[in-house]
């Protein structure tokens, strides 16, 4: 049986416009990952371009639009996405395309940097580690695991419209990762920087982010938490460090 793979192609030096190119390949006997298939195609046509690195879903390089849904090529088995025998691969939507499946992630990273994605603490660090109870540490689960693949933000209509002003689900998930960390003491300042009409409030709960996250994370929930912190005026007691320090 044959697979029909339709690939988004664009080389800025040759092509005025992007186009879809069809490739026919023998359907592999084993169920392979989309990335394996791309690697097979590339062996025949070395010009096909995409990012990849870990090939096991932890580095976040190979986010792409697979039969209409964003995902990581390396952990998406063909069996899960084939429509009939058809596969359509496009770059992540909403970001400028550099070449083929490779998008320019600058805007995405800029939003990430904007939320100050690092621990800030007023207190001098102790000799040893800061203490944190396992219960407080648990609050970071579902947040710190983000791999910055951009599958979520590039599936979000609010991010498409305002990529410069709406922080987007990925970076907001990280914003909440630091708000939720009992070791961070800049909650007030963090919230103030998110309080404008765009940064957080452009999220309309469309939930695409949750549906596509290859790590099973829930940016929508994190955004909800930020909104409620903003509403309650970030009352220090609500988010206060009930820690061990």
């Amino acid at each position, binding site marked *: 049986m044959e697979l029909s793979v339709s690939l988004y192609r664009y*080389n800025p030096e040759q092509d005025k416009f992007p186009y879809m190119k069809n490739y026919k390949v023998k359907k592999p006997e084993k169920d392979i990952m989309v990335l394996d298939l791309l690697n097979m195609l590339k*062996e025949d046509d*070395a010009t096909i371009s995409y990012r990849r*690195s870990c090939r096991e879903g932890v*580095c976040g390089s190979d986010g792409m639009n697979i039969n209409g849904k964003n995902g990581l090529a390396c952990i998406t088995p063909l069996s899960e996405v084939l429509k009939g025998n058809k596969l359509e691969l496009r770059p992540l939507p909403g970001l400028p395309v550099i*070449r083929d499946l490779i998008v320019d992630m600058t805007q995405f990273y800029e939003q990430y940097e904007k939320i100050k994605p*690092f621990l800030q603490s007023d207190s001098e660090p102790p000799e040893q580690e800061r203490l944190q*109870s*396992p219960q407080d540490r648990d609050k970071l689960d579902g947040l710190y695991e983000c791999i910055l693949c951009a599958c979520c933000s590039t599936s979000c209509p609010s991010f498409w419209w305002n990529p410069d002003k709406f922080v987007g689900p990925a970076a907001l998930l990280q914003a909440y990762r630091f708000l939720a960390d009992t070791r961070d003491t800049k909650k007030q300042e963090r919230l103030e920087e998110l309080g404008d009409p765009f940064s957080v409030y452009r999220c309309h709960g469309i939930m695409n982010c949750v549906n596509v996250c290859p790590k099973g994370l829930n940016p929508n929930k994190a955004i909800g938490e930020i909104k409620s912190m903003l509403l309650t005026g970030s009352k220090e007691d609500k988010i206060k460090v009930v820690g061990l320090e």
Partner: protein
Amino acid sequence: MNKVINISKKNNIKEFDALIVGGGGSGMRTSLELAKSGLNTAVISKVFPTRSHTVSAQGGITCAIQSADPNDDWRWHMYDTVKGSDYIGDQDAIEYMCSEGPKAVYELEHMGLPFSRFENGRIYQRPFGGQSKDFGKGGQAARTCAAADRTGHALLHTLYQNNVKEGTNFLNEWFAVDLVKNSKNEITGVIAFSIESGEVCYLKAQATVLATGGAGRIYASTTNALINTGDGLGMTLRAGFPAQDMEMWQFHPTGIHGAGSLVTEGCRGEGGYLINADGERFMERYAPNAKDLAGRDVVARSMVMEILEGRGCGPEKDHVYLKLDHLGADVLNSKLPGICELSKTFAHVDPIKEPIPVVPTCHYMMGGTPTNIHGQAFSRNDGNDFMVSGLFSVGEAACVSVHGANRLGGNSLLDLVVFGRAAGKHINEELKSGGGVENASNEDIELAMSRLNKLNESESGYEVADVKKQLQTCMQNYFGVFRRGEFMEKGVKELEEIREKSENLYLKDKSIAFNTNRVEALELQNLLEVAEATAISAMMRDESRGAHARDDFPERDDENWLCHSLYDPVEKKLGKRDVNFVPKEVEAFPPKMRSY
């Protein structure tokens, strides 16, 4: 793509005080130290830094922080590491790593690394292979600090975040091609190009740090990322500098059969164990005390023995099982969530219910560019070490050497942060006290451009994908877990042919923007350099030690081989270099029979 850069054009030269090639854990720990120093520092990385391979590290970072056991002692960690190295790890470097380790780990925590925690709020530590209390006499220790089974992810992201905080300069998706070496044999920077725009530059620096990671892709089956192609080592070997202990490759016991993805040793640390086709926990036979937590080399060989003797699992009897279901869903979900995900995806197995099919898989390069504890690279002249001015190396690319013939789990992440930090501090001091290198001439720069130019001008030749496959198959067949002289000789011959091809590749795609074909061709040439160094070193070391196991020389031979091997890429010969047995504070651990 500009064929030859015109170096008189200022815009094709970018100048820095310190240039770090590699944005993994070791590179970003070095840059963090330098970012605070006021020196003009840049990190170049062929992938966005958080896509570096450090992100895949799972089980943790080993260090005697006395959390699981208040009586733990860095000297015990040192003893274990020396023993694990099969006595060819340098004891001054191991001492430095184990004693400085706690500081480096606490710093990571202060930076925000989300370590898992014990009830008392301290950092969680789990048992890993080869760990003991009281110099091997007190039973299994629990010394590996973990963030669930995503420690590398947590560590790499934390380091990136703190580099963002300190305003480090990043040249992301830039590819370093070759070192620029001046007439005094000093390193003055690298030739590199922006993968996105194709712009070729001479990145000039007073200190060049190679933090380019491992090269597991020389083997057909590996736990390593596709980008682990040993580029830094390729560059130093081409520049004529030696590589140390290149025969020492770690095969990790538990790569997922068929896929190569790793399941962490932490699985066995949490209580999982290996079984053969008869359901027998066979490690009890091979390592009665440590059992499944013996050194990785020991466990990997035992697995291969089981398979060779017909007790392998599956229709082909070509793997064994890692049993975890007895740990229960709670432990698996809280301590090993990533493993559950990976094994469902790649082995179609839910470890809560069924065992995972595993097989020893190429994992870690113990060898690399020889350095001292400040990251300064060494070369050899008439049997004497001399420092290569301007050149540094840290992380998996370097061989400082703390891992010797066999690395203990969790010691690599520690190596990255301890020696990244140390190199950063040293470079800062050296450059501020007036150290540096002289300029390179135009000819020197042209020479460093020549490989790239040749590839760009190629009109016919061999296909990258074909040659890569040949190379990986050759290494897999002849330089695996067990090695034998006659086979290795065959392998070395094959590599000669593969070198011929790899030097005559045809770059089909000559386009400028994001040309991954060009990158892969350059990477292949680096793989070849590393493979050849590995093959010749392995063939010459006629003994068995640590990860280097020879059928034809099954014994360790301390009389002749209690030393580092030093591969000379110019002569393609193997020399020997003394192991350091002079730690500063403790007495040296003398070589003993190694049993677990």
